[in-house]
């Protein structure tokens, strides 16, 4: 039977970085990264926005071919369409994930990880202290015996379920998202737009993330329990018709964003979950790319250390979850409480807030100040500050 020290399931940001870090931490470690799709990075199911600081911990964007736009402004649209501009600088990037993930995968390859595309895991069972994982792919059907499995298999994760972990999501924590790539639209190509309005995206928000001049990812996420029964795609059709009637739709995608908190059990014996598979998403923003990379880095390092120590028990691997909770997981619990508080506020509140904030000179307008104004009425919003959206 084929053998691997670490089998990483899923070559998204979490899996690529996990494979990269595990192989880099221990030269000679056999790291196999498998991806169900035929190409790493496609199809894209994402708005592709990342914060600059988080991104730079992993790859240097200066002059890189894997991003579409550099973002220097954030523009909020209130429910009544009034606009609030927030000041600039090095805010973030809109990636081209069809090139970004291959760049991450190249880093994993460079340090010795092997990558098989078009290969899916279809089941796994315990064997010899590790896991026997059944693979389907271009090499046919085969089993691989892995000392440790990292499940980086996204929102649809099965690795956790096969390992007996509870990765179910309550409907109230699932954002149903739809996104079009639309051209021939007049938006600021250096800004991201976030539009909060119950009638357009109940329980979530709509976004415009530029991919180029006149081209953007236009999408929205909503909570179905709060919707009027229409699908996310139907909401987006209405939104695009209202705001971008002359736009040309170049591409469509849909997907789910888990806007909850990290799973209680992110590890089992010889199994770790990372990224969306472990619900490691900022529940306020729905952002998950940098989170996934940070989780992948921790998972890869802990995997290498656990194998070197000859102890892949859940008890030892829990150090990974502890590190994650200290790094970001505890913050997500706070953000989740804020999300619940925001969910109780109505459109009228956000319209009033927009008017108040627009009274502040734009050069003094920071997310912190905006929230300071929100706090006058709602002190529970205090910890949000500038880390809110990217």
């Amino acid at each position, binding site marked *: 039977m084929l053998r691997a020290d670490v089998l990483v399931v899923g070559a998204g940001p979490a899996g690529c970085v996990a494979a990269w870090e595990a192989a880099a931490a221990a030269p000679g470690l056999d790291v196999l990264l498998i991806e*169900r799709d035929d190409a790493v990075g496609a199809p894209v*199911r994402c708005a592709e926005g990342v914060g600059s600081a988080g991104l730079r911990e992993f790859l240097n964007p200066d002059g890189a071919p894997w991003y579409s736009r550099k973002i220097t402004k954030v523009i909020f649209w209130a429910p009544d369409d009034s606009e609030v501009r927030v000041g600039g600088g090095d805010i973030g990037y809109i990636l081209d994930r069809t090139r970004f993930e291959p760049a991450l995968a190249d880093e994993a390859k460079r340090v010795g990880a092997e990558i098989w595309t*078009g290969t*899916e895991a*279809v089941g796994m069972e315990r064997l010899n202290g590790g896991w026997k994982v059944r693979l*389907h792919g271009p090499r046919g059907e085969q089993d691989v015996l892995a000392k440790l499995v990292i499940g980086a298999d*996204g*929102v*649809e*994760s*099965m690795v956790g*379920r096969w390992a007996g972990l509870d*990765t*179910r*999501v309550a*409907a109230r924590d*699932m954002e*149903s*998202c*739809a996104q079009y790539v639309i051209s021939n639209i007049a938006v600021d190509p250096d800004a991201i737009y976030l539009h909060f309005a119950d009638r357009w995206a109940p329980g979530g928000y709509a976004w415009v993330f530029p991919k180029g001049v006149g081209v953007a990812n236009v999408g929205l996420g909503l909570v*179905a*329990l709060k*919707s009027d*029964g229409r*699908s*996310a*795609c*139907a909401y987006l059709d209405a939104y695009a018709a209202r705001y971008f009637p002359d736009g040309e739709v170049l591409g469509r*995608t*849909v*997907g*789910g964003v*888990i806007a909850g908190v990290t799973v209680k059990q992110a590890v089992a014996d010889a199994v770790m979950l990372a990224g969306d598979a472990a619900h490691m998403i900022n529940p306020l923003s729905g952002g998950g790319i940098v989170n996934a990379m940070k989780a992948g880095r921790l998972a890869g390092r802990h995997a290498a250390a656990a194998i070197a120590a000859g102890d892949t028990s859940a008890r030892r691997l829990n150090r990974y979850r502890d590190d994650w909770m200290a790094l970001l997981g505890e913050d997500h619990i706070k953000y989740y409480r804020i999300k619940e508080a925001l969910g109780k506020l109505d459109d009228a509140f956000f319209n009033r807030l927009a008017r108040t904030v627009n009274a502040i000179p734009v050069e003094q307008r920071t997310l912190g100040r905006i929230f300071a104004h929100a706090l006058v009425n709602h002190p529970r919003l205090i910890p949000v500050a500038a880390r809110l959206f990217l």
Partner: protein
Amino acid sequence: MPPAPPRRIAAVDHDACDECGLCLPLCPPAAIRLTRRGLAVDAKTCTGCVKCIAPCPVGALAMVDA
């Protein structure tokens, strides 16, 4: 005695489904699988709880008689 009503389970419209995987973590008994061949609901495991139906972004899931 009237016959028992037929059991209702989720079914996927493969033409509409975009295979995004959103419904998988919503399914309590893990009756939905996503493979390279598409999305599949296991009729034996599905309990008919309807949790997967409304959140589908393209409306590809519906309840049918088992």
